[in-house]
């Protein structure tokens, strides 16, 4: 019973940790990008201030909007938050880690996107439709790419449970594999596209014909916008955590580790997030945005890489 209590506490800590760190991560990326452009940039805590400011404002809703428009932000946020809470950030084997595996986490993110795309169509403006339709097109390539990456990871670790995968990656049994390299590249491409970062989409622009995510949420304001913004910050954190926990599992507290190990794991996790955020900032600064219809090629490359990796595993199984 005490174990259950401790486990519950750690599960809650994880949920609060991801939601607390997400705006900081976004702030860090923005700050780093600004510094790389020799601007001073907003303070690190600016995203928190933005969220609070937005949440306090009244929400302006279009006349033609339906009830769906007003509940979508909360649904999107909930699905993303649950998905983020299920990723082993600092410890594996958290209390509810078995309630959804990696495929379910991807599907949860798919559900969030499904509803956000619907919200883009809800008001009946051309910008919203534009965002939704492009988002849907990206998703049709990013989701299968993600699933074939899962095939690779699941076959290497013998499980689709993210906790088990991470624990296996942390053990010495794994070694260097070609498939893992392919999966890593593919996963990074998918993560860049899913979070609408440069070169796929530019999170900093408005009123640009190539925008995707911003076009979908154009009609949102006030607290609704705050919740959606928080959800997209969470999504960035989620993808970085996913990459970090699978490909750099050092310092991750394996299931049944003591409280000290878990705290240490949390510290290491924050450092890893920071490094990943800086890498993202450098990557985004050093590359130009691509045309919308180049993105399918970019994502198609991820799909092919992931598929080749999985195929390699399927075929090499018999050689053992």
């Amino acid at each position, binding site marked *: 019973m005490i174990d259950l209590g401790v486990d519950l506490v750690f599960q809650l800590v994880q949920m609060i940790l991801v939601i607390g760190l997400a705006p900081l991560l976004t702030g860090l990326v923005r700050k780093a990008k600004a510094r790389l452009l020799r601007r001073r940039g907003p303070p690190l805590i600016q995203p928190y201030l933005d969220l609070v400011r937005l949440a306090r404002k009244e929400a302006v809703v279009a006349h033609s909007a339906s009830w769906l428009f007003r509940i979508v932000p*909360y649904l999107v946020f909930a699905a993303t938050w649950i998905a983020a809470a299920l990723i082993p950030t600092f410890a594996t084997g958290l209390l509810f880690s078995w309630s959804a595996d990696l495929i*379910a986490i991807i599907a949860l993110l798919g559900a969030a996107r499904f509803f956000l795309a619907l919200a883009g169509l809800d*008001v009946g*403006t051309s910008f919203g*439709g*534009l965002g939704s339709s492009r988002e*849907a097109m990206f998703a049709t390539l990013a989701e299968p790419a993600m699933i074939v990456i899962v095939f690779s990871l699941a076959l290497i670790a013998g499980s689709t449970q993210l906790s088990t995968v991470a624990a296996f990656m942390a053990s010495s049994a794994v070694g260097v594999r070609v498939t893992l390299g392919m999966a890593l590249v593919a996963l990074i491409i998918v993560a860049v596209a899913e979070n609408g970062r440069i070169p796929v989409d530019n999170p900093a622009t408005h009123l640009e014909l190539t925008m995707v995510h911003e076009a979908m949420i154009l009609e949102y304001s006030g*607290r609704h916008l705050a919740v959606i913004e928080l959800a997209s910050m969470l999504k960035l954190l989620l993808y970085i955590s996913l990459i970090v926990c699978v490909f750099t599992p050092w310092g991750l507290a394996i299931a049944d580790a003591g409280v000290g190990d878990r705290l240490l794991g949390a510290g290491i996790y924050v450092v890893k997030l920071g490094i990943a955020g800086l890498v993202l900032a450098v990557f985004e600064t050093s590359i130009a945005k691509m045309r919308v219809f180049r993105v*399918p090629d970019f994502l198609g490359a991820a799909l092919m890489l992931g598929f080749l990796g999985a195929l390699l595993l399927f075929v090499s199984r018999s050689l053992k």
Partner: protein
Amino acid sequence: MSALVLLLGCDAALLALSLVATVVARAKRGGDFVYGAAFALSSVQLVGGAYHLIGRHAPLALVLPIGLPWIGANFRLDALSAFFVAVLNLGAAAASFYGLGYGRHERDPERVLPFYPAFLAAMNLVLLADDAYAFLVSWEFMSLASWALVMAHHREPGNLRAGYVYIVMASFGALALLLAFALLAGPAGAYTFGAMRAGVVTPGLAAIVLLLALAGAGSKAGIVPLHVWLPLAHPAAPSHVSALMSGVMTKVAVYGFVRIAFDLLGPPVWWWSLVVLTLGGVTAVMGVLYALMQHDLKRLLAYHTVENIGIIFIGLGLALAFKAFAMPSAAALALTAGLLHVFNHSLFKSLLFFGVGAVLTSTGERDMAHLGGLLNRMPATGFFVLVGCAAISALPPLNGFVSEWLTFQAILLSPMLPSWGLKILVPAVGALLALSAALAAACFVKAFGITFLGRARTGAAERAAETDVFSLTAMAVFATLCLIVGILPGLFIDALAPVVSALVGDRMPMQTGIQWLSIVPIAESRSSYNGLLVFLFIVASASLAAVAIHRLASNVVRRAPAWDCGFPDANPATQYTADSFAEPIRRVFGVFAFRARARVDMPAPGDMRPARLKVAIYDLIWEAIYLPIVGIVGAISIRLNRLQFLTIRQYLSVVFGALVTLLLVLAAWP
């Protein structure tokens, strides 16, 4: 009284009801009577089937002295039949209940009512038949009854062609099944399924039987490239019949395939699964790509049936592969995934057709280009359709996700298969499955978003009103079931255990005893999923966020004109349409799948004529397979046309020549 007698009694009553319906069809409350009685009879059969399945009763058999004199009509109720009887009659009961409301808007009830109970009875009899004769007679009866329903509104443009293509494809399918059963029965004429099960077929013949079964059952189910009739015929029928044809009749076809491939044909050969898996993967992706190009709601749904049949056949193909290599537990997982998807698809597809039927009665439109903004005017229908769209897009925690998740788990077991062909094919099929799931989500964003969201595009959509209470109840029940199967899948997986163990010799581990009602296909360290917890987490955190923000921050809402970057256009024609929504996907996938070409005709500056965008897409399967066949048949019939205008002497010599040739062949036959 045994369950089998009860089921057959209900089917006899349905047939009788069909005769009564010819009399009462024009009566004032004739529709109510027919649909009410069909609802009652289907409900009884649903209970009978579910009772037999869940109670794990031994198979029941019955021989009636009708049909062929020396074998009679054999009927049998085993776990497989019982499962499909339950799925079928759940859909039938809901469709009949829905018909109580929807049927009132029918202009020609005498064209629908007599055939409706007959259609239900025929489908039931296919499931219960235990000899080739009874099976084929019921199968043909099912085809003809549904053909009559497709032709109910034969004056509407396109419906005649739909009926024509349907009857040709149905005849082709029946012919293939006839040949398959003939080969199974062998020269001794062992037409009962019991004798076929006991008989041994040589591997070569077995392969031909399997291909014929795929062609016969596949043409009814909508396997690409035999799917062409389905998107024409399903939309042509009244909506509750469309729901039955898409949600249920395709499942009867799946039953036919499962019965032959897993039960009658004996141990499978591994390469059969290559064929089934390839067809399944191609069907899934092509079905959804076709669906994305549609703007007619019912046709879009019909193409999605094609997609889901592909997903079901992927599960069945994997089960065949595992069974061939004596891996019964993996085969059990794959077969459970396929059969659970059979059930799930019958739920959400019926639900969606009910919803579209409600839209059709309320607005008279099923073209998305003339709809929009219906969620504000039909909130309940909109909500239920949204549940159906989320379920068919395989979003957790609804039911569609569970069966696709199980299929993925089965795919992840396939590296253990010792065959190279399968090792390369299965991951490809897995990628196709993932692709089709993602495309399906895009397609239902389009279908729901353009129809129910945005602003009304026409006056008809503007004046739409909520539909009747019968339709809403039918939709509510199915939407609830979509959620229940999604959050408590273990119950349904366990209910499938007797079916699966009878067909592949093993079952999935018992699910209901597992902690927190999770489902664990193999071992918890490998994979587990808990729809109930995911559902509770989503509800809890969404409400937590909503309450916290409303309490702590702001809960003021101001209604204002749309922002749209400062230039909102009052004309609803400026919204995205179904075609413009699908345009990016068409540019990515349509170029090779449909040879899609867009041509922009932009007038020079100063020129007053309007700019035009012309998009051409081609149905390559129709052009590559069907048009040549149509051409050959046409050419042959023109040649043979001369035979109609011979003199009597010439006819006599033709008859004489034919007789001599036949006798010669008979004499030369070894």
